[in-house]
């Protein structure tokens, strides 16, 4: 008799691990929520949540920290997906934080609401008394993230202390916190950008149209292609050009660059990423270019 081969494919291993993490959170925390931006990582995370609790509905609400500077296509996608699932969506608005005087908006050409999101996020976590917050961050994204735990402890100021993290062994996660503290949970920690795309292909998951090549009016700044939009302050010395582009990451319009690409299908995107020599955040994120440790500094304050 032939011995059955119990080799498990990488996507099945990653999916099983992420489902385990989600169920662990649902079992051990009182008030979890899942950050859903309409970006590819949070879309995959949402599919994992669907799978983890099926046939029951997802047992926690979704939350989007909305800078008010998002792409229309992504907001439309977000709302449609939420409706299909019958999920509850909380929108935490950066504009509301500005109006309430919680944060002060930057001015000038490079003004971005990216950093302001932290205050809005932490206020929302406090208002809703969330004790666990799922994020779609991956360890391959950025070097400060390479050392972050799956269950990442935040003190009552929402801060991350990278030098004082809880050791994480086997598949045993420590969910103990005091009131006012919370845990950021990253079920996709061990996924790479390519794994995310392979999974989107395998599962046939719908994603917002701006991930695919399209014609768009853009202008160049610091080697990045920024979109022509009311909220992006373009100087007279920054001429508009029409280009065929797509987005590799989806975030705030003011700091998310497009890449020149003709990839029109998920298969073509996978081919493109497999051949690329630049990281996802390096190609597209102005927010990480501020300094060598820009991500670590923002994370310490409580950023995603």
């Amino acid at each position, binding site marked *: 008799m032939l011995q059955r081969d119990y080799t*498990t494919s990488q996507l099945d291993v990653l999916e099983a691990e992420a489902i385990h993490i989600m169920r662990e959170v649902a079992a051990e925390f009182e008030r979890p929520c899942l950050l859903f931006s309409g970006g590819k990582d949070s879309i995959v995370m949402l599919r994992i949540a669907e799978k983890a609790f099926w046939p029951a509905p997802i047992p926690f609400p979704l939350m989007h920290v909305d800078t008010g500077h998002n792409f229309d296509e992504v907001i439309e996608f977000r709302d449609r997906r939420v409706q299909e699932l019958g999920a509850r969506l909380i929108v935490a608005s950066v504009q509301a934080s500005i109006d309430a005087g919680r944060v002060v908006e930057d001015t000038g050409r490079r003004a971005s609401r990216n950093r302001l999101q932290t205050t809005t996020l932490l206020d929302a976590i406090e208002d809703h008394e969330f004790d666990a917050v799922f994020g779609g961050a991956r*360890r391959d994204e950025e*070097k400060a993230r*390479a050392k972050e735990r799956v269950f990442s402890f935040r003190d009552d100021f929402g801060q991350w202390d990278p*030098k004082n993290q*809880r050791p994480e*062994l086997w598949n*045993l996660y420590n969910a103990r916190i005091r009131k006012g503290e919370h845990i950021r949970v990253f079920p996709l920690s061990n996924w790479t950008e390519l794994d995310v795309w392979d999974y989107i292909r395998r599962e046939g998951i719908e994603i917002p149209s701006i991930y695919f090549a399209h014609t768009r009016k853009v202008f160049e700044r610091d080697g990045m292609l920024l979109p022509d939009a009311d909220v992006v302050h373009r100087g007279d010395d920054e001429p508009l050009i029409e280009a065929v582009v797509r987005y590799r990451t989806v975030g705030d319009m003011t700091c998310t660059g497009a890449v020149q690409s003709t990839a029109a299908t998920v298969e073509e995107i996978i081919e493109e990423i497999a051949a690329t*020599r630049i990281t996802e955040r390096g190609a597209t994120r102005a927010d990480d270019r501020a300094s060598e440790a820009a991500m670590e*500094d923002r994370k310490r304050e409580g950023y995603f």
Partner: protein
Amino acid sequence: MDILRFATAGSVDDGKSTLIGRLLFDSKAIFEDQLEAVERTSRDRGTEYTDLSLLTDGLRAEREQGITIDVAYRYFATPRRKFIIADTPGHIQYTRNMVTGASTADLAIILIDARKGVLEQSRRHAFLTSLLRVPHLVLAVNKMDLVDYSQERFEEIREEFTAFASKLNIGDLTFIPISALNGDNVVSRSESMPWYNGSSLLHHLENVHIASDRNLVDVRFPVQYVIRPQKATDHAFHDYRGYAGQVAGGVLKPGDEVVHLPSGLATRIASIDTFDGPVEEAFPPMSVTLRFEDDIDISRGDMIARPNNQPQVAQELEAMVCWMGDSVKLAPRSKLTIKHTTRTARALVRDLHYRLDVNTLHRDEEATSLGLNEIGRVSLRVTQPLFVDDYARNRLTGGFILVDEATNGTVGAGMITDVR
């Protein structure tokens, strides 16, 4: 394509960062912008070579002090496999970090400098690999270029290490002579060492067989979460009651007779459900939902096993504990929270039998406590029965963590021994 998780141990001096950098670079997992950033920083600091440790040491404090603080996870893939590296620092907090990295590793690589041979540190790393039951160990004898690619030197180190390893529990031990700097035997076979007939390191990593390392014999299913839809609108699932979890051992099939613990009641698996439809079998590491033929009261923390193959139901545990707390010590009468599979209880330390010197394997029976990074043999009494196996038989049902009730920090990692 499957996944191999491996841990690397050794200090910067052994060329560990160079080795990892080479694996990542040659498999195109390092990108141009990352390499540019590393080159820029190396230049700014006046380093003559491109310091690849900057790729993994991402935290500000690490860069400032030139040290590695914590386990860093790195990813690369070849057409054959996806790899997850747990890169553990060699000096600071080595025990805590290496135990963490090794807990999920299929394989460990220990680097040895061919000029220096087997050092105290190499023995320590081998011991921890053995304690954590990492199934495969590779001893990479590095810097062969600096000993003229000498077969004699390689054999000397192999003999010395083999003699030491015979005292440990190491399943599969492989020796590979390499030069990480020159790339000898890293990705492809080196022409400088014609006397070496084995695989290159990457070839070994791509081909080492790991599927059978998982326990596929003893059925163990810790119940993690009860799924009851209770949607008034959806009558199809009105009476649905499923028990979700990740298989920790064995192969489960619909129709199999199983036993529920702690009740001891037997039933049969009615179906194994997933979002994508029912499946014909479930085995580690699958996350599934089980339904049973009989209505039994089952909750999180319970265990499903086979009537003729059950874990031990224990409230008194014997274990090797690695202590990771920095402000408190482990001592007799310490009270802690214990998390084992999906069950959480309280534990009382009844006795500390000895503290182990990880360098000499000497047992200090006079020890009265365990401090940070110390390992000892401990007896625990637990407030609720746990469903345990010997750690050597199943890492998932034999491992546990200890949590300090004052700080909520994870302060200990335990490996259960002496299960009947």
